[in-house]
């Protein structure tokens, strides 16, 4: 998961303070990924060192210091959004992050970003399927490994399809028919199945952490 790029995405909306970034980060990711303030400032310092963000109000450190994204930062963000996550580990979390933050980046079509990744995953699945069709035919272990890869990648494609459908419905202003009970069924034949709004940040009272 890339905190760097998530912060860049938040800054692409306009200048922000460090604390604000932490709150928006946690809210924007459904509070699944907690982030401490120290981590935010360390990351911001590195981003500034790399020329991807600039700080406002030189000299004064701490919560009153604002940050803004540079043109180089915007370019890096756009590149990252469209770069497939590495394959060594399940790409889902990184991909979830990309799709979640893509919606916040001005001028970025989330469905476009989703399609870039969908195509990449399907291309990868085509390669695995070729192996299944040829080499794995006579090699049980290889066939099992190939199946495992195909099912894993397939699950990610299905998530992208579901996300695509949800975002489309949310954009069309047609919220869920059953928001209270939007449990996803395994209905694979219909990717437009249970409707639901985009994840909304839950309200949370902050205790000094």
């Amino acid at each position: 998961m890339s905190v760097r790029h998530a912060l860049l995405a938040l800054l692409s909306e306009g200048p922000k303070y460090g604390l604000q970034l932490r709150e928006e980060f946690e809210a924007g990711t459904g509070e699944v990924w907690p982030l401490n303030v120290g981590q935010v400032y360390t990351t911001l310092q590195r981003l500034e060192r790399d020329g991807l963000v600039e700080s406002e109000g030189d000299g004064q450190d701490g919560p009153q210091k604002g940050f803004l994204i540079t043109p180089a930062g915007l370019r890096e963000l756009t590149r990252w959004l469209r770069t497939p996550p590495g394959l060594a580990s399940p790409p889902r979390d990184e991909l979830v992050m990309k799709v979640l933050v893509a919606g916040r980046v001005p001028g970025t079509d989330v469905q476009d970003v989703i399609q870039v990744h969908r195509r990449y995953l399907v291309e990868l699945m085509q390669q695995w399927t070729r192996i299944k069709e040829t080499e794995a035919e006579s090699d049980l272990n290889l066939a099992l490994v190939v199946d495992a890869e195909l099912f894993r990648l397939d699950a990610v494609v299905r998530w992208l399809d579901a996300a695509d459908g949800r975002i489309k419905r949310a954009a069309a202003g047609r919220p869920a028919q059953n928001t209270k009970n939007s449990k996803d069924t395994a209905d694979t034949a219909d990717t437009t199945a249970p409707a639901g709004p985009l994840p909304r940040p839950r309200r949370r009272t902050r205790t000094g952490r």
Partner: protein
Amino acid sequence: MRHVSRVYGQGVAEVQALHEVDLDVDAGMMVAVMGPSGSGKSTLLTIAGSLEDPSSGEVRVCGEELTKLPRNAKARLRRRTIGYVFQDFNLLPGLTAAENVALPLELDGVPARKARAAGLAAMEELGLAERASHFPDQLSGGERQRVAIARAVVGDRRLLLADEPSGALDSANGEAVMRLIHAACKRGLAAVVVTHDAQLASWADRVVFLRDGRVTDQTMPAPGPESLLTPGPRQPGPGQ
């Protein structure tokens, strides 16, 4: 297909099912069309199979422009050149497997004995010879779909059109069906398989993505399998 559009209804009820779709499928190629429900996949297939006319645009099968063909020539093309595979098999329950497979040839005027021989040959190719005299209700789902594929490739078919061909099957039978379709393509057939399932689509040589009636994207020719089988992570994503 060139600039193929299909509009249903009029005025406020107008639905644009396909919008300026371009699609080429060469002989020997299997193309999968992927998209969510309502994206126009099935419309694309029925137009490619001349079961329905486009509102505008051009469709050619083996060089013949469908919209310019007279009715009976179109029907002949459908009988001789195009094979269809559906999710629910669509076999005739009163005919044996072999009779089902031979039926398109018989309808086309091929003498019964010759048609039956060609039907049996197609069934043998798909490993179904011993099921030839069974009726559809005596066959498993996977076998029924293999019979349907035999029927779709029997004789001198050039184009196979399949709509969710393994939608009703478990993953092993689904895989067997895709394997057969891909093998048929390697023998020179062109195939278009419509599916929402990425695992099935990944059998295709090319995957075309349809969205709201438009072709929005397609896969690039894949590098060889060796790129996945060499040790170490492939293409370490620079954006980590």
